């Protein structure tokens, strides 16, 4: 009874299969091209960084003009300072903001704040630079009286403005993940709201805050544009005074990348290598922490 037929598609079906095949090949090729290009990016940083990665690079200041050797120690210290200042400003602020939105604010206001945080996150970082320049480099800040010149404070503040939405949004996300029955259980025991927030909600959300912070630190550490206006007039030695301008890794990479001096070019690659490693390690950490906290909170609810 069964008519014999070939399993080979013909006509329209063959055409469909061919199309499918081509689309698949297209996707694989596109993925290959893009992944290849990204791999070349990381690979060239690795290869070109090696000649300059030595002890002097980490411990010395820049060499005298026209001589080889030297390092970018001032930039390491400067970036650590800038990031520390920015973190110290942005973390408390961002967390308080997130608490307000998730625990107190009306839905509407919360949505508004979220929207504007996303808008702030989308501001070009160079515009943040103009803002900080106009606010505290060109003029003295009213009241505090700080400023009127470039400083690590100004640079740190610019980075803090960039970090704020990242920290705040992640914290909000985690706060909404904290199961409501935990809060209710706390209220049922007669615990007041602020104690509940401090001793029940926040401890459950701490990993989210850490995630947001590390992500933000990773982004801030590599920001160049705002620092150009806020913190880029620096000398050759290590500075630890935040009221003056300090060197930083991204600004050094920017300067050295345009230099004709191959010695400085290699140092730019080496600095890029250090920066990428820092960024990759911090984002790896944040990813691990976030996954874990999601799993934990997911299991608890």
């Amino acid at each position, binding site marked *: 009874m069964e008519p014999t037929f070939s399993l080979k598609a013909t006509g329209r079906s063959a055409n469909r299969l061919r199309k499918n095949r081509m689309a698949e090949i297209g996707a694989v090729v596109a993925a290959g091209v893009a992944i290849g290009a990204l791999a070349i990016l990381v690979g060239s940083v690795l290869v070109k960084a090696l000649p300059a990665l030595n002890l002097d690079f980490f411990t010395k200041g820049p060499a005298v003009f026209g001589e080889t050797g030297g390092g970018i120690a001032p930039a390491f210290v400067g970036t650590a300072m800038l990031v520390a200042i920015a973190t110290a400003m942005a973390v408390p602020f961002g967390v308080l903001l997130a608490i307000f939105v998730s625990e107190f604010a009306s839905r509407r206001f919360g949505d508004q704040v979220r929207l504007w945080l996303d808008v702030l996150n989308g501001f070009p970082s160079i515009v943040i630079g103009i803002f900080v320049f106009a606010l505290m480099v060109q003029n003295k800040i009213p009241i505090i009286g700080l400023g009127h010149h470039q400083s690590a404070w100004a640079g740190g503040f610019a980075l803090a403005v960039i970090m704020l939405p990242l920290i705040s949004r992640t914290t909000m996300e985690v706060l909404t993940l904290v199961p409501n029955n935990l809060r209710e259980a706390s209220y049922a025991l007669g615990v007041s709201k602020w104690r509940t927030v401090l001793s029940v909600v926040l401890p459950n959300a701490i990993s989210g805050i850490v995630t947001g912070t590390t992500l933000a630190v990773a982004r801030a550490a590599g920001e160049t544009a705002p620092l150009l206006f806020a913190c*880029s007039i620096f000398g050759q030695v290590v500075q630890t005074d935040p009221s003056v301008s300090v060197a930083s890794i991204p600004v050094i990479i920017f300067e050295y990348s345009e230099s*004709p001096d191959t010695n400085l070019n290699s140092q730019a690659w080496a600095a890029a290598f250090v920066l990428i490693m820092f960024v990759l390690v911090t984002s790896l950490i944040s990813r691990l922490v976030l996954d874990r906290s999601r799993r934990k909170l997911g299991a608890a609810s």
Partner: protein
Amino acid sequence: MRKTALALVALLLTALVAVGAAGAKTGKSQATVINGAGSTFVSPLVSLWTPALGTAFDYTLQYSGVGSGAGITAITNRSVDFGASDAPLTADQFAACNGCVQIPWALAGTAVPYNIPGGPARLHLTGAIIAKIYLGQITNWNDPAIKAVNPKLAAGETLPDLKITPVYRTGNSGTTYNFTDYLAAVSPQWSSQIGRGQSVNWPAGVGASGSAGVAGVVKNTPGAICYVDTAFALSNGLHFGAIQNAAGNFIFPSIRNVVAAGATVKSVPAGNELHIVNPDKTNPLAYPISTYTYIILPQKTQNAPALRKMVFWALTQGQAGKYTAKLYFAPIPKVVLVASEKALQGISS
């Protein structure tokens, strides 16, 4: 897990600090810190002065080569102790700076380096040709006008069929001022269409920031040409052109030739503004794009004693051959030195 993560982040940060702090030995003591910013033109020289000033006075000089324009802005805001510029302050800038003094403190030539693979090592150029290149009218290295002034090339050297990429400074630059000042002096068309200034409306080419930036583009771009402090060209192995001066000679920015240009200053006007580009034909040796470069100081400053000492040192011992010679800076002539020292007396706290 959480703690490990936190600890890791903390560890990374402390590692950065510790590593840097290890290097902090260089800046350890309670030395007087002098902050300056501006000209990238003079920055190689300042870079050599810095360690010497450290031994002579225990001063820590923190100089940032951010460009003359940015240096003028910085000293106008008083965000540094001194600014440095290769262009004299404009009247507006003088007014804005509110009691500033400009003091000529170094003298050098602006070289015109080029990158022509297989090209001549000693290319001859005239002001008119350079102006036409930057106007976008001469666009190829095999242009007859360039060939005409380079009749005898050494064996194996050619002027190839290669696109010319003129490279200029972005932002405001004293080197740009002197270069455009020169072009305006030798080319009527440049003078009327573009003019002179710390930044101009470049009709052709690509921009890069800082002396290092333009030299970097030339080093990496076959066919490119730029204008930069001779020191940057030399230390990076770039060939630079011999420029025809008013007397008709093709002149390299060697110290002798820059000295000849500097010597055309017979008296220093009040305000210390000096122009030595394109000296007339009674100076057969003078390099036509030479420039005095200035330090800009506020008349009233807390750091006055230290600044006076530092600048006096720079004007005298700082002009010694061991600092200036290998960077092709010329010692400043007596008449300018006297004026500079006199201006320096006006700085007080």
